[in-house]
């Protein structure tokens, strides 16, 4: 049984971390556009990720307007990569199970004499 990282497994947070893992840093507006989250949701997810030390948030002023820049930490990068590996493993094992079930049902339908009448 795989022990999934519950903090990262939430789709919104996984989307944020995955986008951040492919860049140096991104601002709040870009993350909102890239993930499709509302301001409130994004803000709450970022707070949780910052508390866990998975992202670093820098607040500053750009042309007199507040700007929030977010970067993934090394810990965040490692945990996101590990989480995606676990999801890939789960997907592969689910596909293997469905393939074996499909081949079993195909064998049953190919040889109906083996099936006992109820």
């Amino acid at each position, binding site marked *: 049984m795989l022990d999934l990282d519950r903090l990262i497994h939430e789709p919104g947070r996984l989307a944020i971390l*995955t986008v951040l893992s*492919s*860049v140096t*840093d991104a601002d709040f507006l*870009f993350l909102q556009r890239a993930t*499709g989250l509302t*301001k409130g949701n994004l803000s709450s997810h970022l707070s949780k990720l910052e508390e866990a030390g998975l992202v670093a948030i820098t607040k500053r002023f750009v042309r007199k307007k507040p700007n929030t820049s977010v970067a993934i930490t090394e810990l965040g990068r490692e945990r996101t990569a590990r989480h995606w590996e676990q999801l890939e493993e789960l997907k592969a094992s689910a596909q293997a199970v469905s393939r074996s079930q499909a081949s079993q049902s195909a064998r049953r339908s190919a040889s109906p004499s083996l099936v006992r009448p109820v």
Partner: protein
Amino acid sequence: MERRELERTAWAYTHLRGLTAIPGGLLFMLAALGNWQVGPFRHDWVFLACVLAMGGAYALIARAYRERYGHVTPSTEQQLRAAAAIALGFAVVLGGSLLLRSRAGFSLDLPVNAIAVTFAIVMLATYAIGGVLRPHHFAVYGTLLAAGALPVWHGEDPANIGLVMCGACVVAAGVLDHLAFARTFPPPLDA
């Protein structure tokens, strides 16, 4: 949720901000007008003024993108790949143009439009390296490549016509890139 799709959003941000390419495309056409010395383009300063104006237009468009779509700093790997693509692009356009059709001794002197051919190849390669190659890139730059490679470019060097064709393709691809960009980054739900 698609991992690759999410990871490619930064590539899309870097390569599909199509409206920023439009001043560059117009500059290609203005360079051809300058070479032909049409009207006010007889004076060198007119072209230089156009370069400054296009630079200003680029800065304004890039700022509008930042304010509307936010800002992202690409990873070091992305920055290196973009720099390598630009350097390779210059080398291919320069070397390819000299090889296909020029006054150089080693030139094959083919009846093709060397600038159009090399530029189309470079643009397709750049989008492919950036991982954002879309069907409209094949349509626009494939057409440019086919038109440039047709053996109908006899007579004088068709470099200026090539510049106009490249400029028109950059503008067309820029508009289509922007539409793809806007689809990739839809407005936030609470906007």
